[in-house]
C-alpha cells in the first residue's frame, strides 16, 4: 500500500491531497453561484418540474415592479455604510483603551468579546425581548426615569426599526473588530513609540505618526471584513423583524430568500441574489488584488 503511494508522482500526490477540499468546495459553493446566475434568467415556481428561460424579465421585474426591492437595496447599502463605520469606531476606541496600562484589561476584553460568540439568532431574540414595547427593558427604563414621552415601538415603528436592529448588530460586532485592532496595536513596536515620545511627540503625535501608519493593513482588513459581513446581514434581521414592519427592514439577502424559499418565485429571488453578488464582487475583487500584491511584495 505504502509502496503504491510512493510510486505516485509528487504532483499527483498533491492533487490527491487537494481533491477532497476542492471537490466539496466546487460542488457546494462554486456551483450554486453559477446556478444562481443561470436561475436569474428563468422562471420557476419551485413546484413545476422544469424552469423556463425568460431572459432578463426577472431583472426587469425586480427593478421596475417590485415594491420592496429598492427599499431593500437602500437598506442594505445604508446598513453596510454605517456598519462599516460605527461599530469599528467604537471597537477602535475600545482597543486603544485596552491597549493602555489599565486594570481589569482581560475581563473587560472578555465582556466586549462575549456577544461575538453568541449565535446571531440568540442576539436577535435577546434584543427583541429588550425592545418589547410593553414589558421590555428600554421602555421599562424610560418609564421609571419618567421619560414616558420617549417610549417607542422600537421594532414596530418604520422610522426606527432598522436602527433598533442596527444597535443590536453594533453590540454583537464591536468585539470582533476590537480583537483585530488589538492584535494590530500590539504589533506596533513600543521602542518606536518611546523614541517618538523622547523626540517630544505628544499623545496625538504618537498616534498620528507612529501608530496609525502601522495600523493601515489592520484597518483595511477590518474594513473589508465588516463590509462583507454587513452585506450578508440575514440572521439578525430575520430573528428580530422578519423584514417588517411593512418590509421596512427588508435586506437584499433576506429578500432573495423570501422570494425563492417562501413565495416560490425562484427566478426573481435569484435575480436579487445576483445583484447582491455583484455588489459584493465590487468590493472583493479590488481587495483580493491588493492582498495578492502585498503578498508578492512580502516574498
Amino acid at each position, binding site marked *: 500500500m505504502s509502496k503504491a503511494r510512493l510510486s505516485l508522482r509528487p504532483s499527483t500526490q498533491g492533487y490527491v491531497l487537494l481533491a477532497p477540499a476542492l471537490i466539496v468546495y466546487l460542488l457546494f459553493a462554486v456551483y450554486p453561484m453559477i446556478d444562481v446566475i443561470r436561475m436569474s434568467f428563468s422562471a420557476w415556481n*419551485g413546484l*413545476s418540474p422544469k424552469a423556463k428561460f425568460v431572459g432578463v424579465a426577472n431583472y426587469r421585474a425586480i427593478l421596475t415592479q417590485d415594491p420592496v426591492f429598492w427599499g431593500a437595496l437602500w437598506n442594505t447599502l445604508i446598513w453596510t455604510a454605517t456598519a462599516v463605520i460605527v461599530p469599528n469606531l467604537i471597537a477602535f476606541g475600545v482597543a486603544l483603551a485596552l491597549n493602555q496600562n489599565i486594570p481589569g484589561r482581560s475581563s473587560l476584553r472578555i465582556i466586549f468579546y462575549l456577544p461575538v460568540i453568541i449565535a446571531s439568532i440568540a442576539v436577535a431574540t435577546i434584543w427583541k425581548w429588550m425592545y418589547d414595547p410593553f414589558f421590555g427593558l428600554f421602555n421599562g427604563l424610560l418609564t421609571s426615569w419618567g421619560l414616558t414621552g420617549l417610549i417607542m415601538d422600537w*421594532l*414596530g415603528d*418604520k422610522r426606527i426599526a432598522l436602527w433598533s436592529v442596527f444597535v443590536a448588530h453594533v453590540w454583537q460586532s464591536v468585539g470582533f473588530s476590537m480583537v483585530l485592532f488589538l492584535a494590530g496595536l500590539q504589533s506596533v513596536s513600543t521602542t518606536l513609540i518611546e523614541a517618538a515620545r523622547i523626540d517630544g511627540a505628544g499623545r496625538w503625535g504618537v498616534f498620528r505618526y507612529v501608530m496609525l501608519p502601522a495600523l493601515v493593513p489592520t484597518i483595511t482588513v477590518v474594513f473589508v471584513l465588516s463590509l462583507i459581513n454587513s452585506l450578508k446581514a440575514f440572521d439578525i434581521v430575520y430573528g428580530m423583524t422578519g423584514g417588517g414592519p*411593512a418590509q421596512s427592514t427588508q435586506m437584499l439577502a433576506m429578500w432573495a430568500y423570501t422570494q425563492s424559499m417562501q413565495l416560490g418565485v425562484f427566478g426573481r429571488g435569484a435575480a436579487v441574489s445576483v445583484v447582491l453578488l455583484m455588489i459584493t464582487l465590487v468590493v472583493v475583487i479590488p481587495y483580493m488584488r491588493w492582498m495578492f500584491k502585498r503578498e508578492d511584495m512580502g516574498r
Partner: protein
Amino acid sequence: MRMRNALAATLSVLAITAGLGLNSAAAEELKIWTLSFDNESANVAWQKIIKEFETANPDITISLENRSVDEHKAALRVAAQSSQGPDIFFMWAGLGLGGEFVNAGLSQPLDKYYDAYGWDKRLVGTAGSFSKIYEGGRHGVPYTFHGEGIYYNKALFEKAGITQLPATYDELKANAAKLKEAGIPAMTFGGTVNWHLMRLMDVILEAKCGAEKHDALMAMKVDWSTDACATASFQELNDWSQNYILSPFMGIDNSQSFNLFLAGRAAMMLEGDWLVSQLRNENRLADFDLFPFPTGTDRLYGFAEYLYVSSKSGKADAAAKFLDYMLSDTVQQDNLGAFGSISINSNVKYEKIDPLDQKWMDIFGKYTKIYMNGDQAFPLDVTTEYFRVINEVASGNIKPDAAGKAMQSFIANR
C-alpha cells in the same frame, strides 16, 4: 350512472383492502405535517389520537411534525421537490392558499376514498364542500371549520357604558369611540405576524364593499385603485389603527396581544372560535363574551382547514385509513372542543358545553355562507403585498388612496 358509481365504489374498496393486505406485512410509517397550534389542547389531542390509532393499527406508525405557519408553508414548498415530504399535510381550504398547493399537483384526489368510506354521510356540508372546488377531483378532507368574531371584555364594556352589542359597523365604531372616551383601547392586534392585523382589513372590506364586491376584490377581478369602497376600507383601517387599537401594536405578535387582552389592557379582540379553548385553559371564560363582527352582510368571517394527502405519497391507502379514523364519530366526539368549537362531523352531540361554545354553535347555525381570510383567498405573492400595504396604512405611512393603487399595480404586474 348510479350503478356505475356503486361499481366503482365496490371496486375501489376491493382495491383498498387488497392494498392494505399487501402492505400489512411491513409496518408503514405515515408522515403528517401540521402547524404547531397556539391552542395547546389541539396539540395534545393530536398526540392522543395518533397513539390510539397506532394501537388499533399496529401495522401503521405515524410521525407528526409541527411547524409555525410561515415555516410550514416554506417546508411544503420544499417538500414538493424532494422525496422527504409528508404523506398527509395540513393546509387551509380555498383557492388561494390551499389552491396553490393543490393546483401545483401536491395533493392527490380522494374521490375513491370519499366513496369507499362514505365520508359525505358524516361531514357537515359547508365544511366538506371545499373539497369540491378544485379541478381534477376532490382534494383533502376537512379538519376544522372555523368562525372568527369579536371577543370582548365584559367589565370594560360596562365601564365604558356600553349596554347594547353593536348590530352594525357604525355602531361598532361608536362603541369603540365610547371606549376611547373612557380611556380604554378598543381592540388589540399583534403586528409582527402580518395575518393578525389583516383580519381587521378583511372584515372592514366586507362591511364597506358588501359580499359581492369583496369577493371580486379578493379574486382580483375588480380594480383596487378605482373602486371607492377599497379606498374607504383603507381609510377605516387607518382610523382604527390611529384611534382604537392598543398602541404600540406593530412590534408585538398575536400571542402577546392575547396576553394584553387577558390582562384587560384592551376591550376587544378579533379572534377565531379556538380562543374559547385558550380562555378555558386560562380559566377566564366568565370574563369574556363574543359576537360576530357586524358587517351588514349575511356571511360569517371564517374558513376551513383541511388535511390533504400528498401526491408524492405512496401510502395513500394508509393515509386514507388514518383520515377516516380522524373523521370518525368517536374520535370527533372524544375530542370535541380541542380543535375548535364545532366538529366537522355532523353526528357529534353537543352536551354540557360552555356558554361561549354555545354562542359559536348559535352563530354557526345562523350563517350559511362564509367569507375567507385574505391570506387564504390571495396567492402567496399578492398576500405578501397585501400585508405590506395593510401595515403601511396602519402605521400611517401611506394614504388610503395610494394603498389601493399599490395593490392594483402589484396585481397588474404579476
